[in-house]
């Protein structure tokens, strides 16, 4: 029998909640006729941004071109993204979670972390019961499902919410953590990217459990501090605190937009760029709430493959990225 990584169950109780196929689900929720049908959003981008589980089972993947989607799934309902609706439903989502705890981190439009520590006694429920209640309220009030993970910290809560999707509820107490990590590949741990994965593979570390069982000194010697924190959390410790305040300030603001058909008309392309500047300034102003100043870089995306291109590759920008820099907008 494998020894456990920790002895407690939930020294802290951290919840990670993830909306299943969020954008597509919002569309199905606002139009019940679409329920049970393959729904894809992202029409205005020409590629799939989000797809319902019905579309996923037919082989539609994120970033797939609309023409390819129609080939493999002719019955797909393809819709333009309605970010206004998604953000309104996102606010409702966070408001429901806040009924139970004020400690909610709005991690993205469709994900949040919530700290339930200490709520068992006032609510007269176990942590799992509280998680079930929150999930039930989300599913019934918003009209689509959420996947929930309960764990002693954020890294493990992320693993738990992904464990069973869609509509799963997985609780991973610290003392049972090793069962879950044994079959989990290191690259599927939150915060471990390609580079770190490659390095870990060189050390013959393939699963999250192998990583968690490495000695502390080894981790400190070969890796950076944030990685050491991930290792600590994989051992059940609570390190990464929830960021419950307002969104932190931006370091940069980007506005990049495609248009069709592609154009070689300088006046038109310049007008597009000027519109990007306006939009960036509006965002800057909303964020700063007063006048702010910034340096500006302009980018232009070339049309390499003629009209009707697929997703823009960032390398199309990079060659000219630093070509111009105008100070003081």
């Amino acid at each position, binding site marked *: 029998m494998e020894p456990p990584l920790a002895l407690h169950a939930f020294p802290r109780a951290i919840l990670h909640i993830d909306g299943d196929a969020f954008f597509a689900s919002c569309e199905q929720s606002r139009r019940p006729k679409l329920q049970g049908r393959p729904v894809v959003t992202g029409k205005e981008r020409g590629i799939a941004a989000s797809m319902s589980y019905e579309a996923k089972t037919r082989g539609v993947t994120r970033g797939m071109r609309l023409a390819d989607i129609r080939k493999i799934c002719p019955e797909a309902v393809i819709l333009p993204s309605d970010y206004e609706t998604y953000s309104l439903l996102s606010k409702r989502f966070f408001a429901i979670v806040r009924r139970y705890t004020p400690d909610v981190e709005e991690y993205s439009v469709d994900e949040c972390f919530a700290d339930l520590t200490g709520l068992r006694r006032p609510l007269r429920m176990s942590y799992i019961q509280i998680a079930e209640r929150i999930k039930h309220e989300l599913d019934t009030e918003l009209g689509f499902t959420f996947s929930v993970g309960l764990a002693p910290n954020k890294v493990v809560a992320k693993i738990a919410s992904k464990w069973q999707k869609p509509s799963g509820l997985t609780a991973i107490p610290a003392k049972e953590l090793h069962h879950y990590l044994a079959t989990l590949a290191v690259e599927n741990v939150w915060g471990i990217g390609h580079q770190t994965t490659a390095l870990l593979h060189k050390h013959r570390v393939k699963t999250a459990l192998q990583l968690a069982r490495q000695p502390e000194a080894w981790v400190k010697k070969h890796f950076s501090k944030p990685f050491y924190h991930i290792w600590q959390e994989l051992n059940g410790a609570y390190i990464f605190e929830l960021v419950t305040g307002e969104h932190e300030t931006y370091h940069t603001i980007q506005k990049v937009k495609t248009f069709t058909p592609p154009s070689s008309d300088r006046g038109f392309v310049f007008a597009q760029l000027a519109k990007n500047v306006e939009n960036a300034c509006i965002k800057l102003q909303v964020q700063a709430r007063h006048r702010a100043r910034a340096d500006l870089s302009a980018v*232009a995306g070339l049309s390499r493959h003629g009209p009707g291109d697929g997703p823009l590759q960032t390398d199309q920008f990079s060659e000219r990225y630093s070509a*111009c820099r105008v100070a003081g907008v």
Partner: protein
Amino acid sequence: MSPAFDDLCASGTLYRATGVILCKLSEAYYGQLDLFGDVIRLQRLSNLYESVDTLREKYGKHTVFLGASFLAHTHAQHDSERGHLPERQHQLLPGETTRKRLGIPMFLGEVH
């Protein structure tokens, strides 16, 4: 920005996207005062943009825009099916515009 654009844009090349990146963001307060008039120019600009903001607040984003971006505002962003609008923008309530709507994501039905 115009000289920068001349630098960037090669004639005869087809473009399908443009973008800007703002970096080194800082509060305008900390801009240094100077003796030779830049402050006055900035103050004028500031007054101008305050009026623009008032108009935007009342009538919605992009009510007032730069002359330079006129062509982008008067042409649809996409000419194909990519230009289709979300359904909510077709179901406008009295007083709503495609730019400014109430924060209601969905309607249960319509009563005529």
